[in-house]
């Protein structure tokens, strides 16, 4: 029984197509990553999942039922743009938001305190929200979205704007929640976060689903043709015939090997060649990163982009002036 099912969902704002024929499912107890550059349709998809907007065509079902607002009681939602009542006391705010989702005042009070301790912001409890740092406010909002023990947690860019320590704390918390059996969907444009956390991913670009599947499936469908070398000395080995393309950094090279049935042997030959002239401190053979996969996929699907080098930054599109079309 999938927790979330999107089937052939389409959403158009005025003339801009935000989401086109998007289908995926989220299974219980999984961490699902919704990936894509800014403006690719992540937020639009999420808003349709929680009934803020309705799809123009296609269907959304939550907990194996067609969407109803009562299902939202079982969902925790952290929007991309953070918002709290600035003038309100933190505890009052959490209790208010908890009660809106059906908790009793006493229960909301108890859970708020527990969660504040768990996320190491107990000292913020008596303060006014506007006196807190941005990171702290974000943690408060994180707590507010999970206070009612939702079965499905939907978070739009949950780690943006957090320092590495706090981002790691929230990631650990999400993993714990997943291990307790909750289903979690979060969106991000940072591929490195996804590789560590997610069981399943969906890549979208310009409203279209580019790639989806379990992390292992996605990764294993690509050959281990990426080589990273750190070295001292002569770099003549970088002219080795097995190398298709490479990026040079001081003392480091990121290499893509030429497609071949004997990739493993090619990698070893490259290492042997390198050792002759240089001293090697690191030699690593991996699958392409998600970012590489993503860029490759986007090139396949949009021919206009072929022939020019693509980076994530270039895939970022400016937001439409009048609309938030994500």
């Amino acid at each position, binding site marked *: 029984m999938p927790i979330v099912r999107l089937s052939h969902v389409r959403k158009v704002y005025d003339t801009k197509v935000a989401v086109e024929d998007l289908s995926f499912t989220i299974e219980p107890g999984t961490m699902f990553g919704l990936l894509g550059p800014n403006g690719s349709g992540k937020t639009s998809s999420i808003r349709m999942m929680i009934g*803020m*907007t309705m799809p123009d065509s296609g269907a959304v079902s939550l907990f194996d039922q067609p969407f109803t607002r009562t299902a939202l009681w079982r969902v925790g939602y952290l*929007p991309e*743009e953070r918002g709290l009542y600035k003038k309100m006391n933190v505890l009052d705010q959490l209790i208010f938001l908890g009660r*809106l989702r059906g908790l009793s005042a006493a229960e909301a009070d108890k859970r708020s305190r527990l969660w504040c301790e768990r996320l190491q912001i107990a000292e913020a409890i008596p303060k006014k929200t506007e006196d807190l740092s941005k990171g702290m406010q974000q943690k408060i909002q994180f707590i507010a979205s999970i206070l009612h023990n939702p079965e499905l947690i939907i978070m739009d860019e949950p780690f943006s704007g957090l320092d590495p320590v706090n981002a790691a704390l929230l990631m650990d918390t999400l993993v714990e929640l997943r291990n307790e059996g909750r289903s979690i969907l979060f969106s991000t444009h940072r591929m490195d976060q996804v590789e560590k956390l997610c069981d399943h991913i969906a890549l979208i670009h310009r409203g279209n689903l580019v790639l989806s599947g379990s992390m292992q499936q996605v990764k294993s469908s690509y050959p281990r043709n990426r080589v990273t070398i750190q070295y001292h000395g002569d770099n003549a080995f970088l002219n080795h015939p097995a190398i298709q393309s490479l990026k040079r950094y001081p003392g480091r090279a990121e290499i893509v090997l030429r497609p071949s049935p004997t990739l493993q042997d090619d990698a070893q030959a490259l290492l042997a060649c390198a050792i002759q002239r240089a001293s090697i401190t690191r030699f690593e053979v991996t699958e392409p990163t998600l970012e590489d996969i993503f860029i490759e996929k986007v090139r396949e699907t949009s021919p206009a982009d072929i022939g020019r080098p693509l980076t994530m930054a270039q895939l970022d599109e400016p937001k439409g002036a*009048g609309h*938030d079309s994500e």
Partner: protein
Amino acid sequence: MIVSRVWLIARREYVERIRTRGFLITTIMIPVIMAGFTFGSVFLGSRVNTDQHIAVVSTDTQLILDLQTELNRRQNQQRQQDAAEVPSTPQPGTQPGTPPASPLQPHSNLLVEAIAPGPDTRADLDRQLDANELDGYLWITPAPTPDARPTFEFTPRSSREASIRNPLAAALGAVLMREQLNHRGIVAAEADSVLLPVQIVTAHRPHHQDRESAQISVLVLFFIMYLVIMLYGMNVARSIIEEKTSRIFEVLLATVRPEALMAGKILGVGAVGLTQVGIWLGALLTVALSAAALHTGGSVHLALTLGQVVFFLVYFVLGYLFYSAIAAALGAMTNSEQELQQLNMFLMLPLLVCFSMLGTLLNAPDGSLARILALIPPFTPLLMYMRISLGHPAAWEVALSLALLSASILAIIWVTSRIYRVGVLMYGKRPNLPELLRWLRYS
């Protein structure tokens, strides 16, 4: 379930607003400022009505003496008449809506100074006028023949003192008449009785009194409503804009239906206004009642009947909700305070239209114009209350007006929540009309 969320949202708005320092300050400061204005104007007004000095220039000193006596007599009579009117008015159970005017409006005394004409008297008097030592002078030129009347010429200091002319002329007329009567051999006592001015005591019919107090309560309702909508109507709009800028609505909308959110806001913010007005009115009533009790020795009757009070409250609260709902719609359409200011007139226009027609409608509360307008929701709170107080609306008209008003409040909340829900997801520019209509079709 919806109700409990509306309640939660309303409660949060209410508690957070009541707690602010701003609420405390306005609650205290506005009555203080109002009281300051009132006392200030009363004080200034009492200074204006001081005695007026005039000089009378004549060779005939007897004439001047007679004039002085006549003026004094008239002033005394006036005072007696005013004093007599106070106890004569109240009927059991009712009280006139207006307090008797005399104790608050001091009569200005005319002090007359006799001057014999000399060569430079006129220049001297003009100088005194310029120096504000005199409010005017009356120059009496004796008649050329004994049968003719003397000529009188009054020079006021400014046009403001020109009003002295009338009592002066009346008094002079009486003096001359008495002189004529004396000439024809009628004794002074008889002349007095002939010349006794006619006194008209104002008597009040019971119904007419109700009507007067009802008219006043309609005006009071209007001004309270106007004030409250001015002060608080836009708070609902501001609160919505605040939620849009802080982006908290997205969390709220993921849990609460926009209709519930709007209804909660209107009720919560509205309750704050009602609380403040309640405090003011309570304080005002306490002061007024205790002051009145001191004056009249404890027997105070309210001018309003219970029915009037109930209808007043019902129409006031519904009217307030109606206008708050419109303010909420304005807030949902705009993104900033500045844009909101431009739309302010939509809130005030119906009230002003209503007020401009009030004069006509007060005279014909059961006329067809009043009957139709009172059923149109923006006008209902004021006009139907006016009709109930002054006219005789049919029960079905009252019921229909309440139903229409309530239905339109709900309809506005529904439309507003649509606009809000779609509007908050769009950024930047203000929507134009076709866009708004399209938003209503989005679900």
